[in-house]
């Protein structure tokens, strides 16, 4: 029979789904080994990343070392209410934000400035040597850093005492690692010491990708160094800087746990106890599992919102952005 006119070749819905299903089965079978290869990795993520997410539910119970899982009962948002009234939590939140802001103000620009200066140096050997030197602290652990700077700032065996003597100061010298007034500066300083050098790599790569013809044309037009920097170099870095800055801001609740836990001590808890160290203290130290998980949930949710918003902003600025 001949079909003419407006006959539409519609297959019934069930037939279409069945065909798709069969296609998928066929493709799975063909690439069986490929899917098998991915399974261990997927299991890893489910087990160590998704299962703990489910553990968030304990934040809504009163589970702790005094009340084991079997006895723990659902208490809703009680932990959260208690949390926001707790001195320790509020102090931790305050410190977290303050330290993150200090880092944004000082640790963030440091590699940029270093990269700009490095970029201007004529002597290639000098440049390479400096780079090798400044990348080094990135590979040193925070515990070693604790040891090194404890030695440097020690009031008895350190460097400060001798330096003070050299300029004629003979009074008592204190270890800045134990003083509340200097500890945050110490944190930022060591953060720069460890991360700024290695951080220049990314910016150097961006600087290298700026078209040299732009500079040549500018020089022909008689532009000074400052004009070249202002009109060519900085705009070339602009989108990288803005994106990284936005991302950093999104992680404002994550003030560098490994650093702070390694370097802080009871003298300076007041100014440096942050959310993550507080969670550790409450949860592992005092076994108040549900209470500290509540703090963790707070941090995770606020953090998630911040990161999603900042990632979205970053994408708006440069649509190629994103590792995903």
């Amino acid at each position, binding site marked *: 029979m001949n079909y003419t006119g407006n006959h539409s070749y519609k297959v019934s819905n069930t037939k279409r789904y069945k065909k798709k299903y069969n296609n998928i089965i066929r493709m799975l079978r063909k*690439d069986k*080994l*490929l*899917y098998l*290869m*991915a399974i*261990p990795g997927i299991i*890893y*993520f489910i087990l160590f*990343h998704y299962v*703990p*997410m489910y*553990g*968030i539910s*304990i934040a809504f119970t009163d589970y702790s070392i005094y009340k084991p899982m079997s006895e723990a009962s659902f208490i809703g948002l009680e932990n959260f209410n208690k949390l926001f009234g707790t001195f320790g939590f509020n102090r931790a939140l305050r410190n977290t934000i303050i330290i993150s802001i200090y880092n944004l103000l000082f640790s963030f620009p440091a590699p940029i400035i*270093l990269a700009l*200066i*490095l970029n*201007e*140096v004529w002597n290639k050997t*000098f440049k390479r040597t400096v780079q*090798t*030197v400044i*990348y*080094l602290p990135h590979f*040193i*652990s*925070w*515990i*070693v850093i604790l*040891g*090194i*700077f404890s*030695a440097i700032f020690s009031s*008895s*065996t*350190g460097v400060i*005492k*001798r*330096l003070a003597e050299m300029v004629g100061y003979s009074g008592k010298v204190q270890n800045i690692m134990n003083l509340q007034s200097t500890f945050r500066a110490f944190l930022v300083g060591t953060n720069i*010491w460890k991360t700024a050098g*290695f951080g220049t790599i*990314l910016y150097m*790569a961006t600087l290298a990708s700026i078209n040299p013809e732009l500079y040549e044309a500018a020089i022909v037009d008689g532009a000074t160094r400052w004009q070249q920097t202002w009109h060519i170099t900085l705009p070339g870095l602009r989108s990288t800087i803005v994106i990284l800055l936005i991302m950093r801001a999104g992680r404002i609740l994550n003030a560098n746990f490994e650093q702070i*836990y*390694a370097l802080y001590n009871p003298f300076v808890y007041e100014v440096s106890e942050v959310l*993550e160290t507080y*969670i*550790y203290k409450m*949860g*592992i130290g005092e076994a108040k599992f549900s209470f500290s998980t509540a703090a*963790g949930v707070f941090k*995770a*949710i606020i*953090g*998630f919102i911040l990161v999603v918003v900042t990632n979205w902003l970053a994408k708006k600025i440069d649509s*190629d952005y*994103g*590792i*995903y």
Partner: protein
Amino acid sequence: MSKTKSGKIFQYIFVIILLVYGFMTLYPVCHVIMYSISDPKKAMGGGLFFLPKGLSFESFRLLFQTKEVFIAYRNTIFVTVVGTCINMIMTAGLAYPLSIRRFIGRNFISLAIYFTMLFSGGMIPLYLLVESLGLIDSIWALILPGTISAWNMFIMRNYFQGLPCELEESASLDGASPMVILFRIILPISKPMLAAIALFYAVVHWNSYFNCILYINTQSKQTLQVFLRSMLTYTSMQQMATATDLDALGELTEESVKMATIVVSVIPMLIVYPFLQKYFVTGIMIGSIKG
């Protein structure tokens, strides 16, 4: 660049700034190394250490008299070597299939993994999970929870995706299994990227300390960084069970032995670093390539 007079002045300024910064980077390390090989009595006064104050390896001798340092070293080496191997196998094992276009569920799985970079259950649920798996006080607690870093996995996946797809397609049409394709074709081409990622993982293992504090209770399973930390934070020398002449020297040598322990913890990194530096740099470059 034109070498004008003002250009030259700026060069001097920049060079000086970099020299100062480089000095501030290196001096602290130098201070510790020199202190550790100084005579403990002379070093006690403090001050600047560009050279040792009286040569003495006493602090190292005392340090190596304990067995804890060797145990800690052994543990860290085990975790670093075994851990990195497991990291690489698992990460590549996931990254490669996800890089294949026809992999069903690819986008969903990638998104689910990306989500774990944005949100996590937190420290306590993870601890409780590790506990319920019976891994507390096991050295595997230092390796398994961090088996695959989502960040590194995406770097690998993106790199594999960037390779010409004809490679995989033609081999697959010829009947090669994915394992064969991965090992015979893809991995050999990816050596620079693999070296960089392996180094990233290795450095993290070597320097990690908190997971050991969290999960491990027995001293014989401690890693190097935790051993160092206990040396730095406890001033009593009762740690050093085997050496008896320590009590006599007391406080003098305590500081020097601390310095020696720091040196011992950081020396491998210092030695290995200059040779591997270029791999790290390429790693960052690869990681920063968009898309």
